[in-house]
């Protein structure tokens, strides 16, 4: 990797955790990130925290984006962070989106979720946040 001069794109694994099948948001965000130059892998529906972390490691992702609309975010988002700790992969950044009340956002950030985006967020805000977080691209 050190020999490479070109900027490697950041690899983002986007995943639907939990039981709900509302995939409108995750698909729109996935397309927008892809259009912004990121490498996006979408896992599909109903991923357990273990499955998400497995996939992230296999795909060599630097970022995991989680989407949920069922209200189980307080259980499942921290479970992904915990699983990353267990697998010694805490360098992978976790962010999330969905219907997440204000109070829960603070609690989730304390538990290691880097950022949360709620309904009405402009796609550009998510892209800007990633650019700031990964100024060097995926290098």
């Amino acid at each position, binding site marked *: 990797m050190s020999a490479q001069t070109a900027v490697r794109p950041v690899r983002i694994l986007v995943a639907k955790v939990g039981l709900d*099948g509302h995939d*409108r948001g995750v698909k729109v965000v996935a397309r927008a990130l892809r259009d912004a130059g990121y490498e996006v892998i979408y896992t599909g529906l109903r991923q357990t925290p273990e499955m998400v972390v497995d996939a992230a490691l296999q795909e060599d992702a630097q970022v995991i984006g989680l989407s949920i609309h069922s209200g189980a975010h307080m259980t499942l988002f921290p479970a992904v962070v915990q699983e990353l700790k267990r697998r010694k992969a805490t360098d992978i950044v976790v962010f999330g989106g969905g*219907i997440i009340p204000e109070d829960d956002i603070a609690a989730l950030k304390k538990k290691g979720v880097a950022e949360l985006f709620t309904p009405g967020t402009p796609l550009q805000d998510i892209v800007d946040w990633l650019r700031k977080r990964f100024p060097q691209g995926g290098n």
Partner: protein
Amino acid sequence: MKVRARDAKEVWKEEFESSPSRDDGIETSTISGIPLKPLYTADDLPKREEEMPGLFPYTRGIHSGGYRGRLWTMRQFSGFATAEETNKRYKYLLANGQTGLSVAFDMPTLMGQDSDAPTSRGEIGHCGVAIDSLADMETLFDGIPLGEITTSMTINSPAAILLCMYIAVAEKQGVPASALGGTLQNDILKEFIAQKEFIFPPEPSMRLVVDSIEYCAKEVPKWNTISISGYHIREAGSTAAQELAFTLADGMAYVDACIERGMRIDDFASRLSFFFDAHIDFFEEIAKFRAARRIWARWMRDRYGAQDERSLKLRFHTQTAGVSLTAQQPELNIARTAIEALSAVLGGTQSLHTNAMDEVLALPTDKAARLALRTQQLLAYETGVANTIDPLGGSYFVEALTDEIERQAEAYFKRIEELGGVIPAIEASFFQKEIADSAFKYQQELEQKRRLMVGVNEFTVDDEEPMEILRIDPKLEGEQVARVQNVRRTRDQARCTKALAALRKAAEGTDNLMPYILESVRAYATEGEIMNTLIEVFGIYTEKAVI
């Protein structure tokens, strides 16, 4: 006369073209992208015989009396936490003048798994009420006479099980199945297309749907066996025409499947019902509802040879658009919902759910739920809109838009047929891609401010007061887990084992599964146990993940 009218139009046209136009970059097409003229006139009216309410093709309504005969049913979708909590909410809503019940189940129940399954963790009671067995269902309807109210149940993959639980609760209340009225969503095709709460592959899923339709035609004749739903298709991002076309195509696929089973069209078609979204583009929605009735009546008569008038009449429930609501300045949602509800009423809906202003944040509080119901009561009793049948019939604009949406739907039917029908089109990700494309296009329009959402991409405020929302007590999860485990400990295990074995054997054959499911439910087999028995035979479906 005619010459003068044309002259006036020409004068208007000249003046319009020379007058300044708003230059704000906002789209003038409908929210679905149908281009609109600035003015519609008599020239836009189609040349056809006058349509009348209660008469084929029912564009103007299925009842000759409109809402003069009876108002729409005010049916608020509701359910949260445990059966006991939800039972209290139902009694509260009924005491406040609600006229029918509508059950929202939690995610584990919708996905056919028990509360103590590992993947139910964190999900119990959040999106609706947790139901694991007949015991929970008995609590849910405790003190509510099932012979006197009608109930809608939003459940799909495990629909047959929940219907059997309802029948079994009624038995215990001394109400025969033949007296039960209500609706089962039971629409698995739109799950594959949009909402994605599928479990079995399409073929056995369709078998279960047809089993329930066939069973109810004989045993529960007043039950609406299926609510063919566009709501979820629209909420997933489709346009109005896609919502209409995909939903009616699903409807025809169910009709085909029932006919293939050997049923006669007029024996079941009158119990098919529909469920549409009422989005924020007011006139487009009214046109969609009107077009729905016309298309369905024509297809039922001309393609399926239905003769009973009731088979031709498209009846539908409406819910205002969840996706149109905003977490920002949520009080605005009251205004949005009122406008959407008005479109449903002007479009002739049979029943209506109005969303609560806080539903974009969580399940509604008592106060928000009551405000939403009051919005319907206000429409029904204050505004006078229910006094005239199809009040927008004959509007140059609404008639032209009705025709345009009908034309777009018919074009989709052709494409779906070319793909080999609904199920092959699902397997080819046709619907999923169409919907995702529309959703992305709309999002881009928002980003570019070619469409505005008040409070989101314009007219924002910086510091918003947080709204009080309904919180689900995390203790409930443990209690519900204990409850289902207690049911397993205290039931007649021999009867339960025998019932599940019989169900499994029947699933391997071709018998109608409803009597076997009913016996399993009566024996207090849990929902998860019944589903797992069927999964052993039917397998599960995994979707190809496409962005």
